[in-house]
């Protein structure tokens, strides 16, 4: 085609669409959908004084009461803590801590007297606390075999490699295997109330209901559970106890439903702590059924410790804690203080921003956009 030269690259308006297949005349015009044309309906929030300032005040108004509530609740919780590590010469447990040996057959016992200033009502929870104990160390945390603890027979005889070097001893599989189980807390704590009339009354401690229900009933199972007349001793035949344990796992408790892997002390220990200072529920002191008397009246008490658990090597500390609880758990004033602080800061910021907005904001926003 030879057109006159002055429109050599002619755009003469002819729509000549020739598809590769010989030319269908379907237009290539893109579809007119909101999505393809980027016109989807949308909400476009921006930070204006009208939204930001009220939000600050509202947050302030909500947070401060919550904080006060939390703080008061936390303050109402009674807590008593006694360190029985025995670091000081004067400490009753000093001897036990100094003379500890893994092989000693005779347990070392120490007695710590203490005085409760206030009576403790309703259920009182008794914790043992450890410090500088890195239960959250990666290699420590991994050193367990959940299949074995769940009652898997194969894993019982062939513990997972994760348990190394606490998987086998004397060519026998260790049950329960791993470093966590091996280092289980094994001090025995007993509480006595020194009656004003001179008698020493042992306080009954409940060791049932201290672990999570899911742990006790789902996560931890004895091998062969469900079989009729199971004999733990027989089930654990062919395995050996963890190196540091004094008793095999099937002799942890007399009660059948609290023995073996489903022993609650064991379960509580196996739930590793997040932080190097932690407390674990040891026993519960149930409130008397008549409800008239406080669970633990004000007065003198004695803590008797069978000192089995060495912490000196890693400069750890051991504590016994008595605490009541509330709807927000144990005593921790942090949340309350934090809420009050954040609420106040919000409120304060709201005021400051309001002033700034009044002083400069209007000027800037209404300023015309220079072209």
């Amino acid at each position: 085609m030879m057109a006159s030269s002055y429109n050599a690259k002619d755009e003469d308006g002819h729509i000549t669409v020739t598809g590769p297949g010989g030319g269908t005349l379907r237009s290539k015009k893109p579809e007119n959908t909101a999505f393809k044309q980027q016109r989807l309906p949308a909400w476009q929030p921006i930070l204006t004084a009208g939204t930001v300032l009220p939000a600050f005040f509202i947050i302030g108004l909500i947070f401060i009461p919550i904080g006060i509530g939390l703080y008061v609740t936390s303050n109402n919780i009674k807590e008593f803590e006694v360190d029985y590590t025995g670091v000081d010469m004067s400490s009753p447990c000093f001897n036990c801590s100094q003379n500890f040996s893994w092989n000693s057959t005779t347990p070392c016992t120490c007695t710590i007297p203490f005085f409760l200033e206030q009576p403790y009502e309703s259920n009182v929870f008794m914790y043992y606390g450890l410090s500088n104990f890195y239960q959250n160390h990666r290699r420590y945390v991994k050193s367990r075999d959940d299949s074995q603890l769940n009652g898997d027979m194969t894993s019982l005889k062939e513990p997972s490699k994760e348990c190394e070097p606490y998987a086998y001893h004397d060519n026998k599989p260790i049950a329960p295997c791993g470093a966590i189980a091996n280092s289980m807390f094994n001090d025995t704590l007993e509480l006595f109330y020194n009656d004003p009339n001179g008698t020493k009354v042992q306080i009954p401690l409940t060791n049932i209901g201290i672990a999570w229900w899911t742990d006790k009933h789902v996560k931890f199972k004895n091998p062969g559970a469900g079989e009729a007349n199971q004999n733990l001793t027989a089930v654990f035949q062919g395995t050996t106890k963890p190196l540091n344990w004094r008793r095999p796992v099937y002799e942890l408790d007399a009660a059948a439903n609290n023995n073996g892997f489903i022993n609650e002390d064991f379960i509580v220990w196996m739930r590793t702590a997040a932080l190097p200072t932690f407390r674990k529920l040891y026993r519960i002191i149930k409130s008397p059924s008549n409800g008239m008397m406080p669970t633990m009246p004000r007065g003198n008490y004695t803590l008797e410790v069978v000192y089995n658990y060495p912490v000196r090597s890693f400069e750890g500390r051991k504590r016994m804690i008595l605490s009541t609880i509330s709807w927000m758990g144990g005593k921790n004033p942090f949340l309350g203080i934090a809420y009050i602080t954040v609420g106040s800061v919000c409120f304060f910021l709201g005021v400051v921003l309001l002033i700034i907005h009044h002083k400069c904001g209007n000027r800037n926003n209404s300023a015309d956009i220079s072209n």
Partner: protein
Amino acid sequence: MSFFGMDCVRKKERELERKLRANDREYNLSFKYATNAIKTSKYNFFTFLPLNLFEQFQRIANAYFMFLLVLQVIPQISSLSWFTTVVPLVLVLSVTAAKDATDDINRHRSDNQVNNRKAEVLIDRKLRSEKWMNVQVGDIIKLENNQFVTADLLLLSSSEPLNLVYIETAELDGETNLKVKQALTVTGDLGDDIEKLADFNGEVRCEPPNNRLDRFTGTLTYAGQKYPLDNEKILLRGCTLRNTEWCFGLVLFGGPETKLMQNCGKSTFKRTSIDRLMNVLVLCIFGFLAIMYKMATKLPSLPSSHSGPYVIILNTVVPISLYVSVEIIRLGNSFYIDWDRKMYYARNDTPAEARTTTLNEELGQIKYVFSDKTGTLTQNIMTFNKCSINGKSYGEVYDYTGQRLEITEHTDTVDFSFNQLADPRFVFHDHALVEAVKLENPEVHAFFRLLALCHTVMAEEKKEGEIFYQAQSPDEGALVTAARNFGFVFRSRTPDSVSIMEMGKQCSYELLAILDFNNVRKRMSVIVRSPEGKLSLYCKDHLNEFAGEGLRTLVLAYKDLDEEYFNQWQQRHHEASTDLDDRESKLDQLYEEIEKDLLLLGATAIEDKLQDGVPQTIEQLSKADIKIWVLTGDKQETAENIGYSCNLLQEEMNEVFIVSGNSPEDVRQELRNARTSMKPDAVEDSVFLPERTLGKSVKVLTDEVVNGEYGLVINGHSLAYALEHSMELEFLRTACMCKAVICCRVTPLQKAQVVQLVKKYKQAVTLAIGDGANDVSMIKAAHIGVGISGQEGMQAVLSSDYSFAQFRFLQRLLLVHGRWSYLRMCKFLRYFFYKNFTFTFVHFWYAFFCGFSAQTVYDEWFITLYNLMYTALPVLGMSLFDQDVNDVWSFQHPQLYVPGQLNLYFSKKAFFKCALHSVYSSLVLFFIPYLAMCNTVRDDGKDVADYQSFALLTQTCLLFAVSIQLSFEMTYWTAVNTFFVLGSLAMYFAVTFTMYSNGMFLMLPSAFPFIGAARNSLNQPNVWLTILLTSILCVLPVVTYRFLLIQLCPTINDKVMFKVRQAKATPPPPTRRTRIRRTSSRRSGYAFSHAQGYGDLVTSGRFLRRPAVSRSSGFTHIGRTTTGFSPMGRSAGYSPTGRLQNAKVPDVEVTSLQMYRTIKDPAL
């Protein structure tokens, strides 16, 4: 095809001189010249895999993941399985490979198509049809009309008289007017006699292959005689033969050695600046982690082998999902470009196309736009728009109230059916003119008779009534066509006659003389004897000063000549034209003498149609602080005028500098002078930014601020000096101070050099836009290349990154798509780094509490799924949908584009800021849960501070915090975004509860040890209070900071968004203030493509004298108009107020026609 596909790179001995002998393949083959096959593809079947993988692993990211993969394969190190890295890596690699493969297949196809074109080659004394790729140097080939030139040829003979051929060189230099080439007489005598041609054994010695389009030197030795060869005898590959039945040529250069291919430039792998920045950041992060790791291992009391989790950490700081997401976002934003109806051109059914999907965000950072002129800014159509005959103007359309109507596509057109010879494509809107013609108005008839006679157009009438015009300049063609349609049809010409059809009556005028156009006189005349025997001189004169709507204006005049005087004049003319020295000036004197005392007939206005919306687009872009440089192969005058008409150069500019020196010293002086007048107190030093330490330390030129607005026009030959190493900085400094730069008469390679110069010394992103093969090199050289599609010649599109049909779409591509892409990408990267740094830093703080054992603070499943499921979709949603303000507002405030140019949204500083932000967030996210949970218990006294509950708590806090943070980043909440954000949170809880359920644990006890953690801790009020507290604390400073910023120093975005919000109630119709028709001040911006025509050729049998290529240097008129025109400036006849204005016509025309000395017409 060589095995490694690297023919093009293979260096052979440098050729110093080319020797070849026609019709002697054996002799020519001994030199191993390249054949005519071209190869633009990169791979072949065997080399694809290794080469492509090699290229891909040059991306740091890919190499980095390869490294991670190697680490993960080592079981002692890894805790995550190897396929978590392998699967995405393979996916990324294969998608890229597939894309590269399709691209290369396309290139193979187009290569094949070109290589398999047929050409008639003289082999063994016979003409044979051969494929292009088999054509060899020294072959003689035959070309026919409208065929592409096969290779660089020496023209031997042609069908036309005087061995002329006409070629169109648009593909090479963008000029669309035909050019004439002429063969040597000695070869021309060969004609089309195959025997003679086969016997032709001329030997050619010429320059080695090079890229200079305008120069050729060589000699032909034939029959013992030596003949010099110059550019006049060479047909270059890429040209098209026009208006010539056939010609024969001798192949001098083939395939890759042709000047076209030598001008092609190299295609380089383009990467965005964000990509490069990301590479640097990844390396920094990598180094930082390595140091942390080193420090961690040096700490005492640590058991060995804890590098494993560090691999996890590496994996989470820069996860592969980052790269996958980046690619998805780019792909999505590319699709938006393909889908945009506002960038679809219905005329030729061309949607915009993002041919490269990896450069989108760079579109939001363009600082320099390099544009071609012909076909890009202009449509390359000249239309006869308006005329004024005898003081009456035609061309406007008025409604019944006398209001001028905007002429659109729907305006009624004049029906030319009365004239069988009319060109159906000619469109005119004013019926009055046709009526005047039909009423036999004598002035109107004389007007069109002049148009039909006074020109140098050649007519070609293959079939009765189908006339094609062949004009040296497009506007001449337009005038003759106008005359044709109004009943004065130019039909044919001989050297001494012109045959026209006057209102259906055949007339033949004797052509006595053509006083051809040249740049000094700017007018042409013919002297003819009418059939009645009357002797007349018809003249048309270009009015440079005739400002108004940017129409190129010619004034038409005539006079009757006295027979005696003419004879005498002709005698003198003959003497002068045979005079050997000073011929030019003598002729000019003669012309001047006879072109006196003319009678004014009227004036014409021809529009060199700009593409639609070009001035508006250019104005928008310059408001967005984008600098536009026009690089054109066209003449200086044309380029300048187009510069004015498209608003690039403006009347209000303080000065427009012209650089057209012919020696390096002149050019340097001109550049210096320009700079001094812009900035008298310019300091010579301190123009460079401090040298960069990272990467190659290249000097970076600072932007210099000058008062006022300036323009720069530089000529091709001056540019050649300016681009020399010693002067390039001088040139760049001067050019960058100017608001607009126009480079004319530049070769394709110079275009690329200009682009590269800017790329080298300016830390700025460049974009090149063009439509022809002559733009390919600059398209490849620029950061972003845009091709104008939908027209003939797709080379530009094929090598471009984006293509669309109209220049005006560029503003949408940049101001809307580019800006959004950049915004989205930056938001994405900032947020992505934020969320992953926060994630990682929490680990870091936890390290202090777990004995630096690298215990992860989260559940391992959470680590795996965090980037994959929990946070992937919301951020993707944001990066695909977010827009700060919509497209209408983006156009209304082009300044919104500026932050992108300044790299404000994502830079090292921004990265550092978001790292700092994550440090804060991670501190909150770790220490608040830590303090809240330490020593506390559940509400039934049982454990809640255990590792599992703590992990669950921190990861939940983290997820809430990053989700809320995302909500603050997002400014455009579509339903999809809301669904993604809430859905991801819901998904988190669903997945968590599922994985912590009894069933999962019982199936795989060791894989799901977190059984019950969710149930036992998420029912605790203090857990939720902690989550709330961390969320609030994480966003509190952000909100405060941003609010303060908005209040105290709002950015342009903030202001516009605020304005949008205020306007929401009543969305203003986008009052396009940009739609200015500033006709009042615009200078005649019309295409000035008139050139010396074929006058000599037409009239005399004399040997053709070629028009001087560049006599333009004498053309110095530029800048302000100097006439006494009213500020209205419209040429009186074409004013919008129409007839009223006509009263002023006499004044105006008299002033501007002073050169006509006297005006006898009583009508004026």
